[in-house]
Protein backbone atom coordinates (compact mmCIF):
# COMPACT_ATOMS: atom_id res chain seq x y z
CA UNK A 1 0.00 0.00 0.00
CA UNK A 2 0.99 3.61 -0.37
CA UNK A 3 3.46 5.26 -2.71
CA UNK A 4 6.85 3.57 -3.02
CA UNK A 5 9.12 6.64 -3.13
CA UNK A 6 12.46 4.81 -3.39
CA UNK A 7 11.15 2.77 -6.32
CA UNK A 8 9.70 5.91 -7.97
CA UNK A 9 12.97 7.86 -7.65
CA UNK A 10 15.08 5.02 -8.94
CA UNK A 11 12.84 4.63 -11.99
CA UNK A 12 12.85 8.36 -12.60
CA UNK A 13 16.59 8.94 -12.22
CA UNK A 14 17.78 5.70 -13.77
CA UNK A 15 15.08 4.42 -16.11
CA UNK A 16 17.32 1.82 -17.74
CA UNK A 17 18.31 1.04 -21.32
CA UNK A 18 15.03 -0.60 -22.20
CA UNK A 19 13.11 2.53 -21.24
CA UNK A 20 15.49 4.79 -23.13
CA UNK A 21 15.14 2.67 -26.26
CA UNK A 22 11.36 2.82 -25.88
CA UNK A 23 11.62 6.60 -25.47
CA UNK A 24 13.64 6.81 -28.67
CA UNK A 25 10.92 4.80 -30.39
CA UNK A 26 8.24 7.18 -29.13
CA UNK A 27 10.11 10.25 -30.39
CA UNK A 28 11.03 8.64 -33.72
CA UNK A 29 7.44 7.54 -34.27
CA UNK A 30 6.16 11.07 -33.58
CA UNK A 31 8.78 12.75 -35.78
CA UNK A 32 8.32 10.37 -38.71
CA UNK A 33 4.52 10.58 -38.50
CA UNK A 34 4.76 14.37 -38.32
CA UNK A 35 7.04 14.64 -41.37
CA UNK A 36 4.96 12.23 -43.40
CA UNK A 37 1.78 13.91 -42.18
CA UNK A 38 3.19 17.27 -43.19
CA UNK A 39 3.85 16.04 -46.72
CA UNK A 40 0.30 14.70 -46.90
CA UNK A 41 -1.04 17.90 -45.32
CA UNK A 42 0.68 20.23 -47.79
CA UNK A 43 -0.39 18.16 -50.81
CA UNK A 44 -3.98 17.79 -49.64
CA UNK A 45 -4.15 21.38 -48.36
CA UNK A 46 -3.17 22.71 -51.80
CA UNK A 47 -5.38 20.07 -53.41
CA UNK A 48 -8.40 21.39 -51.53
CA UNK A 49 -7.85 24.71 -53.35
CA UNK A 50 -7.09 23.20 -56.76
CA UNK A 51 -8.67 24.63 -59.88
CA UNK A 52 -9.36 21.04 -60.93
CA UNK A 53 -12.63 19.82 -59.38
CA UNK A 54 -11.79 16.07 -59.15
CA UNK A 55 -8.64 16.87 -57.15
CA UNK A 56 -10.66 19.07 -54.81
CA UNK A 57 -13.20 16.28 -54.37
CA UNK A 58 -10.62 13.58 -53.60
CA UNK A 59 -8.86 15.80 -51.06
CA UNK A 60 -12.10 16.83 -49.38
CA UNK A 61 -13.12 13.16 -49.20
CA UNK A 62 -9.83 12.23 -47.52
CA UNK A 63 -10.19 14.94 -44.89
CA UNK A 64 -13.82 14.05 -44.25
CA UNK A 65 -13.15 10.32 -43.97
CA UNK A 66 -10.04 10.39 -41.81
CA UNK A 67 -11.29 13.04 -39.43
CA UNK A 68 -14.30 10.85 -38.81
CA UNK A 69 -12.36 7.77 -37.63
CA UNK A 70 -10.68 7.50 -34.19
CA UNK A 71 -6.89 7.16 -34.39
CA UNK A 72 -7.01 4.03 -32.29
CA UNK A 73 -9.41 2.37 -34.72
CA UNK A 74 -7.26 3.53 -37.62
CA UNK A 75 -4.10 2.00 -36.14
CA UNK A 76 -5.74 -1.37 -35.46
CA UNK A 77 -7.35 -1.26 -38.89
CA UNK A 78 -3.97 -0.77 -40.56
CA UNK A 79 -2.11 -3.36 -38.55
CA UNK A 80 -4.65 -6.12 -37.91
CA UNK A 81 -7.58 -5.30 -40.14
CA UNK A 82 -5.74 -5.24 -43.45
CA UNK A 83 -3.84 -8.40 -42.57
CA UNK A 84 -6.97 -10.21 -41.39
CA UNK A 85 -8.70 -9.47 -44.68
CA UNK A 86 -5.60 -10.57 -46.54
CA UNK A 87 -5.10 -7.18 -48.27
CA UNK A 88 -1.76 -6.22 -46.85
CA UNK A 89 0.51 -7.47 -44.11
CA UNK A 90 3.27 -5.25 -42.70
CA UNK A 91 6.58 -7.06 -42.22
CA UNK A 92 9.83 -6.05 -40.55
CA UNK A 93 12.18 -3.98 -42.66
CA UNK A 94 15.89 -3.40 -42.01
CA UNK A 95 17.19 -0.06 -43.26
CA UNK A 96 20.80 1.03 -42.68
CA UNK A 97 21.18 -1.61 -39.98
CA UNK A 98 18.07 -0.48 -38.09
CA UNK A 99 15.14 -2.84 -38.00
CA UNK A 100 11.71 -1.27 -38.15
CA UNK A 101 9.10 -3.66 -36.84
CA UNK A 102 5.87 -4.28 -38.70
CA UNK A 103 3.83 -2.70 -35.91
CA UNK A 104 6.10 0.37 -35.88
CA UNK A 105 5.56 0.91 -39.60
CA UNK A 106 1.82 0.51 -39.24
CA UNK A 107 1.81 2.98 -36.36
CA UNK A 108 3.81 5.61 -38.27
CA UNK A 109 1.61 5.23 -41.31
CA UNK A 110 -1.63 5.30 -39.34
CA UNK A 111 -0.57 8.33 -37.31
CA UNK A 112 0.66 10.12 -40.44
CA UNK A 113 -2.58 9.56 -42.31
CA UNK A 114 -4.51 10.78 -39.28
CA UNK A 115 -2.26 13.82 -38.83
CA UNK A 116 -2.27 14.56 -42.55
CA UNK A 117 -6.02 15.17 -42.53
CA UNK A 118 -5.76 17.70 -39.72
CA UNK A 119 -2.71 19.36 -41.21
CA UNK A 120 -4.42 19.66 -44.57
CA UNK A 121 -6.99 21.93 -42.93
CA UNK A 122 -4.29 23.97 -41.20
CA UNK A 123 -2.38 24.33 -44.48
CA UNK A 124 -5.52 25.27 -46.42
CA UNK A 125 -6.34 27.96 -43.89
CA UNK A 126 -2.77 29.25 -44.07
CA UNK A 127 -2.89 29.54 -47.84
CA UNK A 128 -6.25 31.27 -47.76
CA UNK A 129 -4.93 33.75 -45.20
CA UNK A 130 -2.42 35.12 -47.74
CA UNK A 131 -3.78 38.46 -48.84
CA UNK A 132 -4.88 38.82 -52.42
CA UNK A 133 -2.83 41.99 -52.84
CA UNK A 134 0.37 40.08 -52.11
CA UNK A 135 -0.39 37.65 -54.92
CA UNK A 136 -1.39 40.44 -57.31
CA UNK A 137 1.85 42.27 -56.59
CA UNK A 138 3.82 39.10 -57.33
CA UNK A 139 1.89 38.60 -60.58
CA UNK A 140 2.42 42.20 -61.61
CA UNK A 141 6.17 41.62 -61.23
CA UNK A 142 6.00 38.80 -63.75
CA UNK A 143 6.15 35.85 -61.37
CA UNK A 144 4.64 32.60 -62.57
CA UNK A 145 2.35 30.40 -60.48
CA UNK A 146 5.15 28.17 -59.20
CA UNK A 147 7.44 31.11 -58.43
CA UNK A 148 4.85 33.04 -56.48
CA UNK A 149 3.73 29.92 -54.63
CA UNK A 150 7.26 29.16 -53.52
CA UNK A 151 8.46 32.67 -52.76
CA UNK A 152 5.32 34.47 -51.56
CA UNK A 153 2.47 32.11 -50.64
CA UNK A 154 4.45 29.41 -48.83
CA UNK A 155 6.52 31.73 -46.61
CA UNK A 156 3.51 33.85 -45.71
CA UNK A 157 1.28 30.83 -45.12
CA UNK A 158 4.01 29.29 -42.96
CA UNK A 159 3.70 32.20 -40.57
CA UNK A 160 0.03 31.29 -40.08
CA UNK A 161 0.51 27.52 -40.21
CA UNK A 162 3.31 27.00 -37.69
CA UNK A 163 1.54 27.79 -34.39
CA UNK A 164 -1.35 25.31 -34.91
CA UNK A 165 1.09 22.83 -36.42
CA UNK A 166 3.22 22.95 -33.28
CA UNK A 167 0.08 22.40 -31.29
CA UNK A 168 -0.63 19.32 -33.38
CA UNK A 169 2.85 17.93 -32.84
CA UNK A 170 2.46 18.39 -29.11
CA UNK A 171 -0.70 16.30 -29.37
CA UNK A 172 0.99 13.72 -31.57
CA UNK A 173 3.84 13.18 -29.09
CA UNK A 174 1.25 11.80 -26.67
CA UNK A 175 -0.99 10.09 -29.24
CA UNK A 176 1.92 7.73 -29.95
CA UNK A 177 0.92 5.93 -26.74
CA UNK A 178 -1.98 4.42 -28.69
CA UNK A 179 0.56 2.43 -30.72
CA UNK A 180 0.99 0.24 -27.64
CA UNK A 181 -2.27 -1.43 -28.63
CA UNK A 182 -0.75 -2.86 -31.82
CA UNK A 183 2.40 -3.92 -29.96
CA UNK A 184 4.88 -1.10 -30.56
CA UNK A 185 7.31 -1.13 -27.64
CA UNK A 186 7.16 2.55 -26.80
CA UNK A 187 7.22 4.02 -23.30
CA UNK A 188 3.59 3.43 -22.44
CA UNK A 189 3.64 -0.19 -23.56
CA UNK A 190 6.83 -0.78 -21.59
CA UNK A 191 5.27 0.85 -18.54
CA UNK A 192 2.27 -1.42 -18.81
CA UNK A 193 4.33 -4.58 -19.11
CA UNK A 194 6.58 -3.51 -16.24
CA UNK A 195 3.66 -2.79 -13.96
CA UNK A 196 2.31 -6.25 -14.71
CA UNK A 197 5.48 -7.76 -13.23
CA UNK A 198 6.24 -5.28 -10.42
CA UNK A 199 2.68 -4.26 -9.47
CA UNK A 200 4.02 -0.71 -9.01
CA UNK A 201 1.39 0.53 -11.43
CA UNK A 202 0.82 3.97 -9.95
CA UNK A 203 4.52 4.84 -9.59
CA UNK A 204 5.31 3.72 -13.12
CA UNK A 205 2.40 5.67 -14.59
CA UNK A 206 3.61 8.81 -12.83
CA UNK A 207 7.08 8.23 -14.31
CA UNK A 208 5.70 7.85 -17.81
CA UNK A 209 3.51 10.94 -17.35
CA UNK A 210 6.56 12.95 -16.36
CA UNK A 211 8.35 11.60 -19.42
CA UNK A 212 5.59 12.85 -21.74
CA UNK A 213 5.60 16.18 -19.93
CA UNK A 214 9.35 16.46 -20.49
CA UNK A 215 8.90 15.71 -24.20
CA UNK A 216 6.24 18.38 -24.66
CA UNK A 217 8.31 20.87 -22.65
CA UNK A 218 11.30 20.39 -24.93
CA UNK A 219 9.01 20.80 -27.92
CA UNK A 220 7.56 24.00 -26.41
CA UNK A 221 11.03 25.52 -26.33
CA UNK A 222 11.77 24.49 -29.91
CA UNK A 223 8.44 25.89 -31.09
CA UNK A 224 9.19 29.15 -29.28
CA UNK A 225 12.45 29.51 -31.18
CA UNK A 226 10.81 28.76 -34.52
CA UNK A 227 8.03 31.30 -33.93
CA UNK A 228 10.42 34.00 -32.78
CA UNK A 229 12.28 33.56 -36.06
CA UNK A 230 9.09 33.66 -38.13
CA UNK A 231 7.96 36.88 -36.47
CA UNK A 232 11.22 38.77 -36.80
CA UNK A 233 9.62 41.36 -39.08
CA UNK A 234 6.86 42.11 -36.58
CA UNK A 235 8.58 44.04 -33.85
CA UNK A 236 11.10 46.76 -33.32
CA UNK A 237 13.34 45.21 -30.68
CA UNK A 238 14.16 41.66 -31.59
CA UNK A 239 14.53 39.12 -28.79
CA UNK A 240 18.23 38.27 -28.98
CA UNK A 241 19.00 35.86 -26.18
CA UNK A 242 17.73 32.30 -26.21
CA UNK A 243 15.74 32.96 -23.07
CA UNK A 244 14.15 36.10 -24.49
CA UNK A 245 13.08 34.23 -27.62
CA UNK A 246 11.43 31.47 -25.63
CA UNK A 247 9.82 34.03 -23.37
CA UNK A 248 8.53 35.91 -26.41
CA UNK A 249 6.60 32.84 -27.39
CA UNK A 250 5.49 31.67 -23.96
CA UNK A 251 4.43 35.07 -22.67
CA UNK A 252 3.50 37.29 -25.62
CA UNK A 253 2.93 40.93 -24.69
CA UNK A 254 -0.60 42.21 -24.81
CA UNK A 255 0.06 44.70 -27.60
CA UNK A 256 2.11 42.16 -29.57
CA UNK A 257 -0.81 39.75 -29.33
CA UNK A 258 -3.16 42.41 -30.66
CA UNK A 259 -1.28 43.57 -33.75
CA UNK A 260 -1.77 41.31 -36.73
CA UNK A 261 1.32 42.13 -38.71
Amino acid at each position, binding site marked *: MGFDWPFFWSRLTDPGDLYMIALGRTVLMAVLAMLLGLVIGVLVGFGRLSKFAPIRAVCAFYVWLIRGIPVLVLLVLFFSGLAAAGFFRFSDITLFGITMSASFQAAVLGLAIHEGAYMAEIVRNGIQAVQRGQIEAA*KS*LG*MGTFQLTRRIILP*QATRVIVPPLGNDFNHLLKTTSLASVIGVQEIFQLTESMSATTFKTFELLIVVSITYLALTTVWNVIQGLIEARLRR*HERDEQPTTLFAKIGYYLWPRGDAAMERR
Partner: protein
Amino acid sequence: MTDVDGALVRAENVHKWFGQNEVLKGVSLHVGRGEVLSIIGPSGSGKSTFLRCINQLETYQKGRIHVGGELIGFEDRGGRLVPLPNRRIVAQRRNIGMVFQQFNLFWHMTVLENIIEAPMLVLGQRRVEAEATAMALLERVGLSEKAHAYPMKLSGGQQQRAAIARALAMKPDLMLFDEPTSALDPETTGEVLNVIADLARSGMTMIVVTHEMAFARQVSDRVVLMEDGKVDCEADPETFFRDQPSARLKAFLATIH
Protein backbone atom coordinates in the same frame (compact mmCIF):
# COMPACT_ATOMS: atom_id res chain seq x y z
CA MET B 1 7.73 47.91 -80.15
CA THR B 2 5.18 50.61 -80.82
CA ASP B 3 2.22 50.76 -83.13
CA VAL B 4 2.55 52.46 -86.49
CA ASP B 5 1.09 55.66 -85.06
CA GLY B 6 3.48 55.67 -82.08
CA ALA B 7 1.09 54.44 -79.39
CA LEU B 8 2.56 52.15 -76.72
CA VAL B 9 -0.86 51.29 -75.30
CA ARG B 10 -3.87 50.98 -77.55
CA ALA B 11 -7.22 49.89 -76.16
CA GLU B 12 -10.16 49.44 -78.49
CA ASN B 13 -13.74 48.94 -77.37
CA VAL B 14 -12.80 47.04 -74.20
CA HIS B 15 -15.69 45.35 -72.38
CA LYS B 16 -15.64 43.64 -69.01
CA TRP B 17 -18.39 41.98 -67.01
CA PHE B 18 -18.36 40.85 -63.39
CA GLY B 19 -21.17 38.33 -63.63
CA GLN B 20 -24.18 40.27 -64.93
CA ASN B 21 -22.61 43.61 -64.09
CA GLU B 22 -20.97 45.33 -67.03
CA VAL B 23 -18.14 47.48 -65.62
CA LEU B 24 -16.36 48.38 -68.85
CA LYS B 25 -18.71 49.32 -71.68
CA GLY B 26 -16.38 49.81 -74.57
CA VAL B 27 -13.29 51.72 -73.46
CA SER B 28 -11.03 53.05 -76.20
CA LEU B 29 -7.80 54.82 -75.28
CA HIS B 30 -4.28 55.19 -76.52
CA VAL B 31 -1.10 56.24 -74.76
CA GLY B 32 1.97 57.31 -76.70
CA ARG B 33 5.48 56.29 -75.74
CA GLY B 34 6.73 58.65 -73.04
CA GLU B 35 3.26 60.02 -72.46
CA VAL B 36 1.62 60.43 -69.06
CA LEU B 37 -2.12 59.77 -69.01
CA SER B 38 -4.22 60.45 -65.94
CA ILE B 39 -7.61 58.82 -65.52
CA ILE B 40 -10.06 60.45 -63.17
CA GLY B 41 -13.67 59.66 -62.43
CA PRO B 42 -16.10 58.71 -59.69
CA SER B 43 -15.60 55.42 -57.84
CA GLY B 44 -17.21 52.53 -59.66
CA SER B 45 -16.58 54.13 -63.03
CA GLY B 46 -14.30 51.25 -64.05
CA LYS B 47 -11.00 53.13 -64.10
CA SER B 48 -9.19 50.68 -61.79
CA THR B 49 -10.68 47.70 -63.60
CA PHE B 50 -9.45 49.09 -66.91
CA LEU B 51 -5.96 49.52 -65.47
CA ARG B 52 -6.01 45.97 -64.16
CA CYS B 53 -7.05 44.64 -67.55
CA ILE B 54 -3.90 46.12 -69.08
CA ASN B 55 -1.69 43.70 -67.12
CA GLN B 56 -4.25 40.91 -66.96
CA LEU B 57 -4.99 41.03 -63.25
CA GLU B 58 -8.49 41.10 -64.72
CA THR B 59 -9.46 39.53 -68.03
CA TYR B 60 -11.45 41.62 -70.44
CA GLN B 61 -14.07 39.79 -72.45
CA LYS B 62 -14.46 41.85 -75.57
CA GLY B 63 -12.35 44.32 -77.50
CA ARG B 64 -8.58 44.50 -77.70
CA ILE B 65 -5.70 45.91 -75.68
CA HIS B 66 -2.31 46.18 -77.36
CA VAL B 67 0.85 47.08 -75.45
CA GLY B 68 3.94 47.63 -77.57
CA GLY B 69 2.07 46.22 -80.56
CA GLU B 70 1.37 42.95 -78.74
CA LEU B 71 -2.22 41.84 -78.07
CA ILE B 72 -2.63 41.44 -74.30
CA GLY B 73 -4.09 38.21 -72.94
CA PHE B 74 -5.33 36.78 -76.21
CA GLU B 75 -4.30 35.48 -79.56
CA ASP B 76 -6.14 36.76 -82.61
CA ARG B 77 -7.07 33.77 -84.77
CA GLY B 78 -8.76 35.24 -87.80
CA GLY B 79 -10.73 37.77 -85.75
CA ARG B 80 -11.55 35.31 -82.97
CA LEU B 81 -9.86 35.97 -79.61
CA VAL B 82 -8.35 32.87 -78.00
CA PRO B 83 -7.03 33.23 -74.43
CA LEU B 84 -3.26 32.89 -74.12
CA PRO B 85 -1.83 30.18 -71.89
CA ASN B 86 -0.86 31.45 -68.41
CA ARG B 87 2.85 31.22 -69.23
CA ARG B 88 2.43 33.80 -72.02
CA ILE B 89 0.38 36.12 -69.83
CA VAL B 90 3.08 35.94 -67.15
CA ALA B 91 5.67 36.92 -69.75
CA GLN B 92 3.55 39.88 -70.95
CA ARG B 93 3.38 41.28 -67.41
CA ARG B 94 7.17 41.61 -67.14
CA ASN B 95 7.31 44.83 -69.12
CA ILE B 96 4.44 46.45 -67.25
CA GLY B 97 5.01 47.81 -63.74
CA MET B 98 2.14 48.32 -61.34
CA VAL B 99 1.75 50.36 -58.16
CA PHE B 100 -1.20 49.55 -55.92
CA GLN B 101 -3.36 51.63 -53.62
CA GLN B 102 -2.45 49.36 -50.69
CA PHE B 103 1.29 49.21 -51.63
CA ASN B 104 1.32 45.38 -51.35
CA LEU B 105 4.94 45.13 -50.36
CA PHE B 106 5.85 41.56 -49.44
CA TRP B 107 5.72 41.84 -45.66
CA HIS B 108 8.02 38.90 -45.00
CA MET B 109 10.90 40.55 -46.86
CA THR B 110 12.95 43.66 -46.18
CA VAL B 111 12.64 46.62 -48.56
CA LEU B 112 15.80 45.55 -50.38
CA GLU B 113 14.61 41.94 -50.64
CA ASN B 114 11.29 43.18 -52.01
CA ILE B 115 13.08 45.03 -54.78
CA ILE B 116 15.62 42.37 -55.81
CA GLU B 117 13.14 39.46 -55.65
CA ALA B 118 11.62 39.69 -59.13
CA PRO B 119 14.78 40.79 -60.99
CA MET B 120 16.59 37.75 -59.60
CA LEU B 121 13.72 35.27 -59.83
CA VAL B 122 12.10 36.38 -63.07
CA LEU B 123 14.93 38.04 -65.00
CA GLY B 124 17.69 35.83 -63.59
CA GLN B 125 19.87 38.73 -62.47
CA ARG B 126 22.77 38.01 -60.13
CA ARG B 127 22.39 39.26 -56.56
CA VAL B 128 25.18 41.89 -56.82
CA GLU B 129 23.67 43.29 -59.97
CA ALA B 130 20.11 43.32 -58.57
CA GLU B 131 21.27 44.92 -55.31
CA ALA B 132 23.20 47.65 -57.11
CA THR B 133 20.11 48.52 -59.16
CA ALA B 134 17.92 48.37 -56.05
CA MET B 135 20.18 50.69 -54.04
CA ALA B 136 20.24 53.19 -56.91
CA LEU B 137 16.44 53.10 -57.06
CA LEU B 138 16.14 53.52 -53.29
CA GLU B 139 18.41 56.54 -53.56
CA ARG B 140 16.14 57.91 -56.27
CA VAL B 141 13.00 57.54 -54.13
CA GLY B 142 14.84 58.77 -51.02
CA LEU B 143 14.78 55.55 -49.01
CA SER B 144 18.42 54.45 -48.95
CA GLU B 145 18.51 54.24 -45.18
CA LYS B 146 15.45 51.97 -45.07
CA ALA B 147 16.88 49.22 -47.30
CA HIS B 148 17.01 46.67 -44.50
CA ALA B 149 13.77 47.60 -42.76
CA TYR B 150 10.66 45.46 -42.92
CA PRO B 151 7.63 47.11 -44.60
CA MET B 152 5.45 47.20 -41.50
CA LYS B 153 8.00 49.44 -39.82
CA LEU B 154 7.66 52.09 -42.55
CA SER B 155 5.08 54.83 -42.95
CA GLY B 156 2.56 54.52 -45.76
CA GLY B 157 4.43 57.06 -47.88
CA GLN B 158 7.70 55.19 -47.42
CA GLN B 159 6.02 51.90 -48.27
CA GLN B 160 4.57 53.35 -51.45
CA ARG B 161 7.92 54.79 -52.53
CA ALA B 162 9.49 51.36 -51.91
CA ALA B 163 6.72 49.78 -53.99
CA ILE B 164 7.49 52.20 -56.84
CA ALA B 165 11.18 51.25 -56.63
CA ARG B 166 10.20 47.57 -56.69
CA ALA B 167 8.17 48.02 -59.88
CA LEU B 168 10.95 50.07 -61.54
CA ALA B 169 13.54 47.38 -60.80
CA MET B 170 11.96 45.29 -63.56
CA LYS B 171 12.80 48.09 -66.03
CA PRO B 172 9.24 48.24 -67.37
CA ASP B 173 8.19 50.01 -70.56
CA LEU B 174 4.96 51.10 -68.95
CA MET B 175 3.99 51.99 -65.38
CA LEU B 176 0.43 51.70 -64.07
CA PHE B 177 -0.55 53.57 -60.90
CA ASP B 178 -3.80 52.50 -59.27
CA GLU B 179 -4.77 55.35 -56.93
CA PRO B 180 -1.26 55.45 -55.48
CA THR B 181 -2.00 58.04 -52.81
CA SER B 182 -5.57 57.18 -51.83
CA ALA B 183 -4.49 55.20 -48.74
CA LEU B 184 -2.05 57.86 -47.54
CA ASP B 185 -2.14 60.68 -45.00
CA PRO B 186 -2.12 64.16 -46.53
CA GLU B 187 1.41 64.71 -45.13
CA THR B 188 2.90 61.72 -46.93
CA THR B 189 0.90 62.11 -50.15
CA GLY B 190 3.26 64.84 -51.33
CA GLU B 191 6.42 62.75 -51.06
CA VAL B 192 4.87 59.99 -53.18
CA LEU B 193 3.50 62.43 -55.78
CA ASN B 194 6.97 63.99 -56.07
CA VAL B 195 8.49 60.62 -56.86
CA ILE B 196 5.81 59.95 -59.49
CA ALA B 197 6.27 63.43 -61.00
CA ASP B 198 10.05 62.83 -61.21
CA LEU B 199 9.41 59.59 -62.99
CA ALA B 200 7.06 61.34 -65.45
CA ARG B 201 9.73 63.90 -66.28
CA SER B 202 12.24 61.11 -66.94
CA GLY B 203 10.16 60.01 -69.93
CA MET B 204 8.45 56.93 -68.49
CA THR B 205 5.15 56.02 -70.11
CA MET B 206 2.55 56.07 -67.38
CA ILE B 207 -1.15 55.63 -66.74
CA VAL B 208 -2.22 57.08 -63.41
CA VAL B 209 -5.64 56.53 -61.87
CA THR B 210 -5.94 59.32 -59.34
CA HIS B 211 -8.15 61.59 -57.30
CA GLU B 212 -5.42 64.23 -57.03
CA MET B 213 -6.65 66.87 -59.51
CA ALA B 214 -3.75 69.29 -58.98
CA PHE B 215 -1.31 66.46 -59.60
CA ALA B 216 -3.16 65.34 -62.75
CA ARG B 217 -3.10 68.90 -64.03
CA GLN B 218 0.62 69.43 -63.44
CA VAL B 219 2.09 66.09 -64.44
CA SER B 220 -0.12 64.66 -67.19
CA ASP B 221 0.15 65.11 -70.92
CA ARG B 222 -3.49 64.12 -71.20
CA VAL B 223 -6.37 63.65 -68.77
CA VAL B 224 -9.34 61.34 -69.23
CA LEU B 225 -12.65 61.27 -67.43
CA MET B 226 -14.14 57.82 -67.11
CA GLU B 227 -17.72 57.46 -66.09
CA ASP B 228 -20.06 54.49 -66.06
CA GLY B 229 -17.58 52.19 -67.78
CA LYS B 230 -16.85 54.56 -70.65
CA VAL B 231 -14.46 57.33 -71.57
CA ASP B 232 -16.48 60.49 -71.22
CA CYS B 233 -13.93 62.99 -72.47
CA GLU B 234 -10.19 63.46 -72.83
CA ALA B 235 -8.01 66.48 -73.39
CA ASP B 236 -4.69 68.07 -72.51
CA PRO B 237 -4.71 69.12 -68.83
CA GLU B 238 -5.12 72.85 -69.49
CA THR B 239 -8.16 72.40 -71.74
CA PHE B 240 -9.50 69.65 -69.52
CA PHE B 241 -9.54 71.62 -66.27
CA ARG B 242 -10.06 75.12 -67.68
CA ASP B 243 -12.67 74.54 -70.34
CA GLN B 244 -14.18 71.40 -68.82
CA PRO B 245 -15.33 70.11 -72.21
CA SER B 246 -18.26 67.97 -71.06
CA ALA B 247 -21.28 68.36 -68.84
CA ARG B 248 -20.39 65.25 -66.85
CA LEU B 249 -16.87 66.56 -66.23
CA LYS B 250 -18.32 69.85 -64.96
CA ALA B 251 -20.61 67.91 -62.64
CA PHE B 252 -17.79 65.63 -61.42
CA LEU B 253 -15.35 68.46 -60.77
CA ALA B 254 -18.11 70.33 -58.93
CA THR B 255 -18.60 67.40 -56.54
CA ILE B 256 -14.96 67.25 -55.49
CA HIS B 257 -14.21 70.93 -55.07
